[in-house]
Each structure stands twice: as C-alpha cells, then as structure tokens.
C-alpha cells in the first residue's frame, strides 16, 4: 500500500470548515462582510481590515496557473513514489490564490505553463476522509 500523503490535522478551528466542505466536494473561500476582500486561506478575521464577520462561498473551481514547480526529489515516501509531480499556485476566478497539485498531464515539466487554464479535480483521501482539491488542464 502506498504511503499516505500528509493530511490536515484537527482540531484546528480556522481550516477545519474548509476541509469538512471538501468531503462534499466543495472548494470554499471567504469574503469580508465589511470590506468585501477575498480571504484565503481560511481565517476568523479579515486579513485586509481586521473585521471578524466573513461569509463562506463555494468556488466554481476554475482558474489559471500562476506559477508551479515540478518536484523531482522528495524524501517523503508518499511523494517519492509518485515520480515527478507538479505543485502550483492557482489563481481561482473568484480572486483567491491557493497551493495545489496540477495533475492530468503527461510531462509536467513540458505540459504546464504559467497562465494555463485549469479546472478542479478531487482526489479522495480514503473512506470518510477529506478530499484534496487538485487541478487539471481545462
């Protein structure tokens, strides 16, 4: 059995609602009720104005690659067995930037470019567990 990826740990009150939503395949982000700033990663305060009232939204899961790297060497057994894999920042159309993996390409060093359009693809993490949001070419 392949080693399992590092999983989010709980209790952790800021990020727990985000990961709970992934079980329903919902990629969520927040906006500030006071100043409308888009807040990501999830927090209990607005990083723009400090206000404490935020609203959670579900993203459409469409965006573009801001930047990426292809990891050729990882000491972590869960990743060492993958072969070269791409880690990226993706800019979602709703205005937030998140870390993720780009999957569904043949050669990640050649088939991914900054600005490339991508769409959400979920990777289940086991029975009853969270799902990981990843992206593939749109």
């Amino acid at each position, binding site marked *: 059995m392949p080693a*399992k*990826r*590092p*999983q*989010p*740990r*709980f*209790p*952790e009150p*800021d*990020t727990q609602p*985000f*990961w709970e939503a992934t079980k329903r395949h919902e990629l969520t982000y927040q906006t500030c009720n006071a100043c409308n700033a*888009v807040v*990501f*990663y*999830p*927090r209990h305060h607005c990083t723009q104005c400090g206000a404490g009232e935020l609203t959670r939204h579900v993203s459409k899961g469409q965006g573009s690659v*801001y*930047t*990426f*790297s*292809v*990891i*050729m*060497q*990882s*000491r*972590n057994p*869960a*990743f060492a067995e*993958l072969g*070269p*894999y791409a*880690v*990226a*920042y993706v*800019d979602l159309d709703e*205005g*937030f*930037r*998140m*870390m*993720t*993996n780009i999957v569904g390409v043949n050669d*990640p*060093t050649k088939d991914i*470019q*900054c*600005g490339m359009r991508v769409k959400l693809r979920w990777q289940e993490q086991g029975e009853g567990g969270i799902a*990981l949001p*990843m992206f593939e070419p749109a």
Partner: protein
Amino acid sequence: MSQQRDAAIVGIYEYPLRVAPGVSPLQIKAESASKALEDAGLRWGDVDAIYDTGGDQGIGGLGIAEYFGLKPRLIDTTYVGGSSFEFQTNHARSMLAAGKCNVALLTYGSSAHSDRRAIGTAGATGVGPATPINNMEDPWGLTLIGNYAMVKTRHMFQYGTTNEQFAAISVATRRHAMRNPEAVKAMTDLEFVGVRDITLQDVLESRLIAYPLRLLECCMVSDGGGAVVLVSPDVARNTRKRPVWVIGCGEATKYRENNGDITVSAGAQAAPIAFGEAGIAPAEVDVLMAYDSFSITVMCLIEDLGFCKKGEGGAYVGDGHLVFDDPRKPALNTDGGGLSSNHPGQRGIFLLLEATRQLRGESTSQVRDAKLAVAVGNGGQLGSRHATAVTILAAD
C-alpha cells in the same frame, strides 16, 4: 557622508568547519563568541546584550544566556529564519544608539549537516502541529526547494530570464569560493562532485532537484556558525580592529497574497528604509552579500534592492558583473556564499562576517578600496512567507 555612526561591528568569527560531528550548536556558539571577543580585544564579561535565535534549550534566550554564563541587560531572540541575524543587528544598533547596552554579542551555531537534516527535499511529514499553514500546504507535497523554484518559474515567465543568466550567479560565487581555503575545505568535506571552478554548462547540466532549479543553483547543507560583536561608539574607539559602522537598516515581511507578485521580495520594502537611513544609493555599494539559498533568491534581491530595475536582473548578472575583480561594483558573495562556502540552515550571520572582512581589507577575494557593503538576509521561504532585512555597513 553625514549618516549616523552610533553602532559598530568590532569583532567577528566564522567557525572554520562545515562538517563538525560530535560538536553541539551551543559549543559552536560559545567558541565563536570567545574568538569574536578576542578579535575585538574585549572580555567575556564585557558583554551586556545577547542576540541569538535561542532555540537550543527550549527556554529561548534564557537558555543561551545561562549556557554562556552571562548576565546580560538585554536579550533579543528575534527569529525569522535565515535573515534573523540582519534583523538582530538592526535591533542591536537601535539599542546601542539608545544607550541600553554597550557590547552586544550575536551568535549562531548549527549541526544541520551532522544531523542529516534534509532541509531542501524533506517536504512536510504530516506529523507537525495542527496550524493553518500546515493544514493548507502539507497535503500537496511542496519541498523547500520547490517553494523557491516556483518563484524562478514565474520570474522566467514574467521577464524572460534564462537559465544561463541564473547560472551566472553560481559560476561567479564558485570563483570566489575557490579563493577561500575554508570554502574549499567545506566543498571537499561535503564531498562536492568537482571542487573546482564551474562553467555555465556545468550548472545547466547538473540534475534537476525541483524544476526549474538545478543542483548547482542550490546551497549546501553544512554544520557551522559564528559570532559578531557590536558596540557603542565609546567602546568602538578602543577596540583592536577598525570599527565597521552600521549605517542603515530596513526590514520587511511578505506572504502569498491574492493577486500578489511572487517575484517581488520583501527586500523591495526594506531597501528604501535602509538606503534612506544610510544616505547612499545602490550604485555606491562595493560589496553585496545577498542571501543565496538559491540562485533565484539572489536574482530577486539584486532587483528589489535597486541594483537594477525589476525584471532586468538576468541581464545584470549575466554580463560578468559579480566577481570581486570586475571594475563594475558591487561584487557578490565574495566568500563563496551559501552555494559554495557555508549554509548550515540559516546563513544570515555569514553575510555580516564577510561584509566586515571586506571593509577591514581581510577578504580572500578583496574588493579594492571597499568602503560600503550591504548584507541582505532572506529568511523563511521566498515563495510563500519570508522576512528580508537589509543592513548597510561602512568602513571607518
């Protein structure tokens, strides 16, 4: 020049070994502290302020103060990764200027190599504390080198910077390393393949660690450490060596931000503060000690400190500009840098040490008539969260 001269570096020591099995970080710190005080002509008991990241005994700065056997009036354990030492120097300068202390000791020690810490390629283990950062990054397997590589990818995309231009940084600093016996011993002891000058082709043909960063664009992981003694002007008048004055300081932080520009480091915010205080322009700087965790770190810092325009760093470094005997200044990382001389995890202190050697005329790649040096530390990880501090130093 009319800048303030209210704090000076008067003692330095760089622990000579990069492979030191059986020696603890605390022992490296104490030995370095003793030798740096000797360099200054000061005594152990003269120290009245301790600057150290303080993690060795689990009780912060109290652990290091007790180990040394000192009773300082002031302890500062600012920790922001590899740039902690520039932050601490900047803070020490303020406290010396305010008369809160007279002899500040700044120390670093690490056994990263002997501990076999795979700093760059380890990635998250998934067993750390439950924090927002860990929970939102660990599952995707980013390594530290991959973090910096993402900045390089974007720099190449946004400005057309080439791999050859990045490689020029590694080539120039290796040349300096080959002139520094301690760096040569470091590379030998760490079993570098080919302890020799390298070419652009060597860099371009070295193996990919995290695309687009290759092996020869990455720093070493060594053991090591060092110490710096900073003093007030009154004390500086009576020390053994000519004082090196701290004339400008700036610090800033940066994070992943929605719509942010990952190619711009916190150096862009820190530099105007430091250069403004010093009353000098980047064009006047003789020696640039820029934190070279990776080639991309240097590229961003050179641009963000204003040595060239943003996005033009590739052309700037690619024309042979960086070596100590080129008439165009500044020279870059004249000790050999983290790429080829010393990087036990947090390199910032070595930037101060070599800058001081240059302004004393003691470097193994001495820049002729060096009067002004900049040490710019970058701690944390460039692509996600980092802290940059600029320290500007002037010869007496």
